[in-house]
């Protein structure tokens, strides 16, 4: 809400706290901790930061993690779940039962099943806790993606990263709290609305870094053809501007916004100084480049962004999102036509970098207080679409978590014998969000913002902390 704030100091701090380079976030955090911010659950936060890997398009659980012998036994036969159950596909007529074209094996001490599409992540299963029976109330990309990012099927609600920025701010004063790293080939479903702050102040929206673009952060620098603007002219200009604003402000007491705007320029300058270092991947070793797959064309883009995510986390971001695949009907996990080819390619691009991120965070000791989340908007059908594709399936899908506060090598939930519907210990996106917030020290039922007559939450009126996967 605009205009004169009720608690001026706190509001000034909050206004500035994170969108791009937060002011005195430590102060704010202390302020809130001291005053026992009402949304904190009071226990020790297990995670300081979160990185979310989002598989755009609906990653096929039954080709990656959810092994069902029955699909192999009945491959090619009509899909009949029995008992007159209604089979509903989103855009196609249900086809025959289809086994995964990928080979399955158990991995790690935990013995988790992982398909041959993910050879690198398969080696990391002992770090992970799987949610094996997640369900979505939508079978359609737009609403299901909104649900998984913001807790609502409709546009306009703040995303998880925005809520976290709003609640906790950044860990450093020169790095955004919520950063999102879209695929070089395009934005995810719902475009920038996938990173929106909704009705929260705009500074909480995801800061987009286009890791492969010539100007990765919008407006960070003057246009390259403006050679008249030098670092000297900028620095001197800032001094003059500060003085002009001070003269203006002296005659206008009692309005913190005027001071806040001046502070916002200082923050902008700090970010301009810190960004080149942040984005400079060349400072990483050749071994690290190889680890993340920067040396191979298939993995270079996702790898670059996973590596950048690690650098952001190290420098104080709270919530970093790495998207695997753009929106639209191809180059992502929306594999309607050809599971072996399309999913194979998507998996190849994601597998090694994601595993590298886990390993790298682990060896740096960051996994102790960094939560890694791998998720998607829904799963896919155990029967075929066309010859070798699969249609959307909100009935069951898989996510996994690793790192801070997670009990490693566990799984919670089980789908039916087909991997068609979640059956036992079913979880939802609300539960995932509630769990993420819990690990950050936040009670999801108490983190609210008033909008249009309702105290809104990330978890709407749902959500349960999945304690079964917590350490």
């Amino acid at each position: 809400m605009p205009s004169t704030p009720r608690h001026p100091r706190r509001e000034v701090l909050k206004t500035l706290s994170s969108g791009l380079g937060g002011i005195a976030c430590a102060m704010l955090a202390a302020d809130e901790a001291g005053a026992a911010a009402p949304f904190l659950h009071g226990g020790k936060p297990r995670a300081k930061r979160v990185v979310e890997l989002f598989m755009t398009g609906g990653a096929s659980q039954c080709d990656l993690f959810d092994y069902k012998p029955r699909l192999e036994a009945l491959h090619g036969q009509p899909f009949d779940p029995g008992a007159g159950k209604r089979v509903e596909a989103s855009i196609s007529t249900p086809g025959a039962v289809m086994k995964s074209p990928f080979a399955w094996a158990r991995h790690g001490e935990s013995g988790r099943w992982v398909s041959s599409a993910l050879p690198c992540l398969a080696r990391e299963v002992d770090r992970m806790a799987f949610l094996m029976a997640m369900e979505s109330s939508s079978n359609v990309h737009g609403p299901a993606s909104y649900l998984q990012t913001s807790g609502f099927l409709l546009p306009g609600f703040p995303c998880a990263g925005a809520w976290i920025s709003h609640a906790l701010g950044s860990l450093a004063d020169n790095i955004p709290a919520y950063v999102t790293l879209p695929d070089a080939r395009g934005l995810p479903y719902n475009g920038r609305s996938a990173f929106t702050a909704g009705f929260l102040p705009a500074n909480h929206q995801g800061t987009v870094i286009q890791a492969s673009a010539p100007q990765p952060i919008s407006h960070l620098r003057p246009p390259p053809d403006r050679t008249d603007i030098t670092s000297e002219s900028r620095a001197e200009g800032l001094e003059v501007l500060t003085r002009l604003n001070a003269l203006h402000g002296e005659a206008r007491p009692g309005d913190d916004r005027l001071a806040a705007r001046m502070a916002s320029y200082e923050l902008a300058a700090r970010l301009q100084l810190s960004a080149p270092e942040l984005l400079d991947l060349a400072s990483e070793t050749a071994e690290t480049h190889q680890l993340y797959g920067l040396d191979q064309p298939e993995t270079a883009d996702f790898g670059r962004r996973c590596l950048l995510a690690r650098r952001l986390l190290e420098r104080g971001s709270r919530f970093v999102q790495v998207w695997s695949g753009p929106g639209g009907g191809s180059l992502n996990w929306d594999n309607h036509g050809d599971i072996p080819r399309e999913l194979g390619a998507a998996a190849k691009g994601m597998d090694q970098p994601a595993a590298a991120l886990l390993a790298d965070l682990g060896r740096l000791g960051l996994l102790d207080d960094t939560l890694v989340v791998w998720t998607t908007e829904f799963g896919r059908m155990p029967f075929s679409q066309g010859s070798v594709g699969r249609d959307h399936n909100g009935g069951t899908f898989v996510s996994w978590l690793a790192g801070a506060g997670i009990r490693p090598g566990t799984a919670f939930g089980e789908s039916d014998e087909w991997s068609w519907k979640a059956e036992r210990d079913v979880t939802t996106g609300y539960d995932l969000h509630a769990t993420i917030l819990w690990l950050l020290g936040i009670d999801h039922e108490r983190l609210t913002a008033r909008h249009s007559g309702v105290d809104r939450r990330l978890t709407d009126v749902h959500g349960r902390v999945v304690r079964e996967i917590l350490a």
Partner: protein
Amino acid sequence: MQSSRYAILRLALLAFVAAITAPPAAADPPWSLAPLARPAVPPGASHPIDAFIQARLAKEGIPPALPADPRSLLRRLHYDLTGLPPTIDDVESFAAECAARGIDDATSRVIEKLLDSPRHGEHVARHWLDAAHYADTHGNDHDHARPNAWPYRDWVIGAFNDDKPYARFVAEQVAGDILFPDDPQAIPALGFLAAGPWDDTLMVGVREDTVDHLMSQNLDRDDYVMTVMSTFQSLTVHCARCHDHKFDPVSQRDYHALQAVFAGIDRADRPYDTDPALHARRRTLLARRGAIERRDSTILAAMQAPAEAARLEAAVTAKQTRADAFQLLEILAITSVASPGTIHTPLPDGSWLASGPTPEKDTLLVTARSPLRDLRAIRLETLADPSLPGGGPGRYEPAGNFHLTEFSLAARPLATADKPAVPVAIAHATADHADSNDPVQGALDGQATTHWSIHPRYGENHEAVFHLAAPLTTEGDAILTIRLDFQGATGHQVGRLRLSVCGPELAPADRDPLPQALAALVAKPAAERMTAETETLFFELLRGEVEAELAALPPPEKVYAVTNDFAPQGSFKPAKSPRPIRILERGEVTKPLEEVGPAALACLPDLPADLFIRSDDEGARRAALARFLIDDRNVLTWRSIVNRVWQWHFGRGLVESPNDFGFMGSEPSHPELLDWLACWFRDDGHGSLKALHRLILSSATWQQAVAFDAAAAGRDADNRLLWRAHRRRLSGEQVRDTLVSLGDGLDLAMGGPAVVHFLDKGKATFMPDGGAPAFLDYEHFPADAPAHRRRAIYRFVFRTVPDPFMDALDVPDGGQLVPVRNESTTAVQALALQNDPFVLHQAGRIADRIGTTENIAAIVDALVRHILLRSPSAEERALLAAHAERHGLTAAAHLLLQTNEFLYLD
């Protein structure tokens, strides 16, 4: 935020919902539902607003601030009424006027001038479009453009400029088509209902029989209910959809009864005519077509009259000639160029069916023998078949579509087997059906990027007729080679086809395909037809006649609005009559309870909720609700709008939650003033918004200075009692328009299609290759492009990829209703003002306009006067002169554009 407070709020919400849905006696209603009576104006100040405000301040012992200085006052007047700054000349002449006539007289002259300016409507429209969550794309995952959204935006601007009385303004936006059928401009008003986001994947692409589709229709109706009730009633009734609260069953009934009002409409392009005569003609024809499609009894009776029946029977005979005139081509072979494994098998009816692999792209070469000596047209039938995906006729999985990218023909006489076939030119083609984006002409233009597609009518037979440019005459039979190219989207080939030809016996117009429903019946002899079949046939003929008459009219304008008459697309089909609405247990579409009919709010004093609609007439429902909304007795309508206008001028409403007058919202700071304004506006002002603007802006309350007073702040830090003016930051649009007016100069052209400020591939959808939404490139859009000079209200607002510059300045993206904008102060904003090419360009143009003299002090004076509308102090002059000398005048101009003084209104 605390759990106890949350619990209280939950209880309050429950109480509120109970209050608005149960009979009024059951619970204490919120303040907003109290009867509306005009309070007495307190003694004291002569201006009624000042009397209320000052009486309250006097009670608290707080003195009001002094009047604002003339420069601040003029700046505030200009921005509040037009969204644009005054010029330094305006400031100086206003100061002179104030001196000559007194400030009151000078001010009222300025108010009148600005209210008469066309810029006024452009400015106020921005407030309204925020509240209506208007944008130029659908939103959601496939964020397609709405190229016809803008007529609604222009209607809003016009309505404010024309000072359309508020009741009429409301009524047109809810039911203009029904209540004002003779006014063509009442159609674009319906863009209000359609303004919000819409999920075309869900509505069009997802199968009709799915829960997702039902859910999307439910959410679509929820958006209508929410938009209408929040905007006109300031009530958040949509929270009664929330399924986790144990609502009184009556409350759910009330909410769903409102849904029933909107159960017969969908969002789609709706034709309208600006010429009233044409509007009337088209309306008559559309009504007739509607009646025919409904098989209205009057039409049935008319066509059974002997003369009409004979006329129609004769028309059938004429059509039969057409069906008989085509002779089947004997197909000798079909070769798949790309895929030898693909087999084509002849069927008894002369058609050929494909089986085997579906190659990615293909070309079919069909060899056939024609018995005609004089061939004029060739007909390609694409036939449905159960063996094909989705029933065909195409081979694309899953839907059965095909994309015929090119059709070409070559011929040679049968007798001369050794001679090569000679290409035969095709003049044009017609089809019984084509996707509106993919007409059959796409198969004749030599381009693989265009094609004929039969989306979304799969599982049906279709046909296209190709007219030869010149007759093909031969001595004996001819061997034809028909080449069918499928070089576009993957796997989009025809699965079953048949070919036939006709000679000169048919007039060219009679060769064209008949609408499908007609073709089968036409072929049947009259004697064999059942009565029902004859009726169907006649209805189809009549429909064809109306269609032809409609097609002969000049093309209509289109506006994206609500309608129940549009071409079906996939699962998205118009409701012939309102869809039945059932109360949903816990709001879940899979748990329907009993059906409810349309009704309005039950909670208003002296105003019955019953809309007295017992029929299935969609329009009557909306019309009745519109009458309910504009009723003089509707206490919410009048309180809501005066509070909104107050908020536009003060930055905050008397009620701080303009869309929520319930228990979860704020209470009014000055309840009696609010009621006085509501009554005055309704009764004395006759709903004139310009009169309301005038009243508010002429008050001493609005005209007071922003001056801070520590003692007053100690008593009322928040300034709820209005002991001074609120300082307001310019909106994103105001910043943009001001920069252009100071730099390049505004292009004041009004209205028309939205102005694009980003680079794209020139497609209507901005989705290259139908794939992912691109990163729309705002950054490299030329800073000096003429499009930048239009006012910001005409910008193309792309819901899911907003302009980063406007985004940084808190301009909403059209996702939610925004009655009050956020006002954030961020580093992103600082960076945008520092580095955006558009800002830098305008700074340069400002420097150009100031020109050059030898005297740097004079230049700086001119610059400050141009931007800040005053002369600089000695220190400012020195600072800016030094900066300009070191880094150029553009740098100095750019600094001034970033000052607090520039961005805030005192």
